[in-house]
């Protein structure tokens, strides 16, 4: 049995208070969800518990005894460990070596017991059997793994230490729903074996599925702890948001009848896509769902001309075949990538430079900086971008504001077709709400939007029509009242939906 109690923890970084009053109670056989908007202090609280940072004030009680950890290793020796979203794996090493890094099983206390390492690693991998490819073995190098597989190795690494308390910090963000389901089954097992679990997540549905209690932080302070069984999603959101201004999702609405077809896709094929066909009308918000890595990114990238493809694309009645994003951009197509830091932004450049980047040619030579500045200023006002100035580097912004820059740079071009690749990943609730509002505004202006999201709630709440992808194909097209969680999940798992339309008809050439 283990009980951990964090009491009135305070952490300051210089003049910034990251955690003003952190409280958390968790004990064996319990899952406590730690929730709050970005910047509410939940990461700092987790880091104090796992010994990554030391608190300025307050105390940490382990089984009633006051403890303070000087390092993550010290916390680990007390049976406390964490699974982070930022991965700590060494790409050049194998799965087994990563799992056992720094607590390798030894033979005679000196030599690595490789056999035991591999055997135990295989047992750990088997926990996720069926949700990861069978080709994964303990000797597979980590650089060969996809992000979700890496995340699983990260989880196994924590579990291999036989911890008493595990903090899952956004550990499900890159997992697909089958993997999440498996993880939750495992969490149930670990719970009954006496493990204490803290679960940090942005995803409301997961919290309701896995947690017994929820502890809510807001602006670094503890707001309250509630029993999940007796609480509604709405109540939790209200606890997270100041002034209890709960977010109203934009009601989903069907596209205006007779709106012209902006994009028509026939038999689109790439390395991952195996013949995808659909159309998209002006003013429509068409969702793309499914498990991660089923070809959704390929679909968006191919339309944008960023990867080679076969098939027929018709944009506003004209056949097109873009071989570079530049060509797509000339036809008013815009693409918002999912990975802000690696695909969307130039982190060390200014906000202005980032906003200007897709439109440089439009500002002429020499660049008309005055005009660029006023246009960029207008867009950042529209998006209520919180920044020191347009000249501040974009890495000085918070996650939500940085994402606004990624979208803002395309708004400068006034796109007619907007491709979104999981744009709200890792964005806090408040910024998500603003983003949904923006999407609604764009729709009303007639922008056609193709919206891939790994968050099923988003698709269910925003889209009147959802294409569900599985294994490079559209496994179901859900529309109107068929857009339900059951249908979405069933189609994601590859189940054949009764009215799944594969668009078998050939284009009349």
């Amino acid at each position, binding site marked *: 049995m283990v009980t951990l109690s964090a009491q009135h923890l305070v952490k300051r970084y210089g003049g910034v208070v990251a955690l003003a009053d952190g409280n958390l109670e968790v004990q064996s056989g319990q899952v406590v969800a730690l929730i709050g908007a970005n910047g509410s202090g939940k990461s700092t609280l987790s880091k104090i518990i796992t010994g990554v940072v030391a608190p300025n004030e307050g105390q940490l009680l382990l089984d009633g005894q006051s403890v303070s950890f000087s390092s993550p290793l010290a916390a680990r020796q007390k049976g406390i460990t964490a699974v982070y979203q930022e991965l700590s794996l060494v790409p050049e090493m194998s799965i087994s070596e990563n799992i056992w890094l720094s607590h390798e099983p030894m033979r005679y206390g000196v030599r690595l017991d490789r056999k035991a390492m591999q055997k135990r690693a295989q047992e750990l991998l088997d926990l996720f059997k069926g949700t990861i490819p069978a080709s994964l073995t303990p000797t597979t190098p980590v650089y060969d793994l996809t992000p979700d597989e890496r995340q699983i190795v990260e989880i196994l690494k924590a579990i291999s230490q036989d911890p008493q308390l595990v903090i899952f910090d956004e550990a499900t963000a890159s997992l697909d729903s089958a993997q999440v389901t498996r993880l939750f089954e495992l969490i149930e097992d670990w719970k009954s074996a006496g493990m204490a679990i803290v679960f940090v997540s942005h995803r409301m549905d997961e919290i309701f599925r896995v947690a017994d209690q929820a502890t809510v932080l807001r602006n670094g302070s503890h707001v309250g702890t509630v029993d999940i069984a007796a609480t509604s999603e709405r109540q939790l959101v209200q606890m997270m948001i100041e002034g209890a201004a709960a977010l109203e999702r934009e009601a989903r609405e069907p596209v205006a009848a007779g709106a012209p077809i902006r994009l028509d896709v026939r038999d689109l094929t790439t390395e991952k896509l195996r013949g995808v066909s659909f159309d998209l009308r002006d003013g429509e918000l068409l969702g793309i769902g499914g498990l991660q890595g089923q070809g959704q990114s390929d679909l968006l990238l191919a339309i*944008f001309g*960023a990867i080679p493809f076969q098939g027929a694309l018709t944009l506003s009645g004209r056949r097109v075949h873009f071989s*570079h*994003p*530049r060509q797509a*951009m000339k036809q008013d197509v815009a*693409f918002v*990538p999912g990975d802000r830091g*690696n*695909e*969307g*932004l*130039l*982190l*060390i*450049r*200014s906000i202005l*430079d980032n906003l*200007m*980047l*897709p439109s*440089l*040619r439009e*500002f002429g*030579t*020499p*660049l008309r*900086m005055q005009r660029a500045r006023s246009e960029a200023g207008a867009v950042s006002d529209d998006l209520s971008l919180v920044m*020191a*100035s*347009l*000249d*501040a*580097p974009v*890495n*000085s912004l918070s996650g939500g504001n940085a994402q606004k820059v990624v979208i803002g*740079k395309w708004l400068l071009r006034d796109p007619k077709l907007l491709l979104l690749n999981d744009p709200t990943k890792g964005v806090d609730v408040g910024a998500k709400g603003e983003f949904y509002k923006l999407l609604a505004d764009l729709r009303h202006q007639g922008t056609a939007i193709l919206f891939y999201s790994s968050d099923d709630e988003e698709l269910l709440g925003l889209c009147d029509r959802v294409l569900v992808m599985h294994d490079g194909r559209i496994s179901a097209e859900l529309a109107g009242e068929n857009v339900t969680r059951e249908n979405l999940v069933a189609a994601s798992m590859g189940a054949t939906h009764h009215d799944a339309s594969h668009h078998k008809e050939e284009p009349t050439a």
Partner: protein
Amino acid sequence: MTTAKAKRGSFVPNFTSRLTPPLIALILAIVLFLLGGVISPGFVNANQAINIVRLAAFLGIIAAGQTLVIISGGEGIDLSVASVVTLGAILTFRLTDGQDALILPVLGLVMLVGAGIGLVNGLGIVFLRIPPLVMTLAMAGVVQGVILQVTRGELEGETPDLMRTLIAQPLIGPIPGVIFLWIGLGIAMWLLLERTPYGKMLFAVGINRTTAMLSGVRVPLVVVLTYAMSGMLAAFGGFVLLGFTDIVFLNLGGRYLFPSIAAVVVGGTLLSGGKGSYWGTMSGALVLQLINSLLQAQGLPEATQSIILGVVLLVLISIYGRQRAFRL
């Protein structure tokens, strides 16, 4: 440039955060100059200053293309500059054969040849995916070989008088033309990097090629263009250098290879790309030239000079490393 500007907008207007590498290099140049006066009286005077800037100008002009290539990232470096400088000088020497009237057409041809060599570098790097270090090193060998093959070591020709007058001799007051040329190039390079779509795209390509591509930048085009420009500027550097040396020899540009990279780095341009400025390179060229002149004034042996130069570079770069920890 941009850093200085970006800093203005940040909340912490403290001194250290404004002390960017190009500024450090410039301050260091001034300090070195004054130090020279302390060590050897008579070092600090107008003529000496002009002479040092004049010598730095040749290095600075040759390092201009190197600056662009290094900013372009992807382990970008141009080791063929030295050979192209030599080729540019030899071509000018031979083709003008001392005739003033031929200067301009020959200059045009020389820059075209340089651009052509750079173009091949760029194409090899982008389309054959040859690492820049290997590609440009091989190109250096090829160019050197062609020079030997064609001239067979016999360098005939003459430097036109007008070039000497315009480049090396005092033009306005005591200041030689090459200094004006260098200042003009400085302004042109600033415009190119900060006020043209190409310049902004070059930084984007240097920082993150995926972001650049997904923002509509034709990355291969920008990279190829950059290497072509480096070749062109190196050839131009050879042309200018001839106005100073008057004669050519087979290894004329050789001693500029290492300094052309060092000047860029001392000027605060990141070897990993995406961040830098030409005015930094100009400051870097001044620093290198000053160290050189100071050590020579001391009458130190060549080997000692080279050791001191190396140590100074290491110290500078490690200071810049610390600077970056302040989130530059």
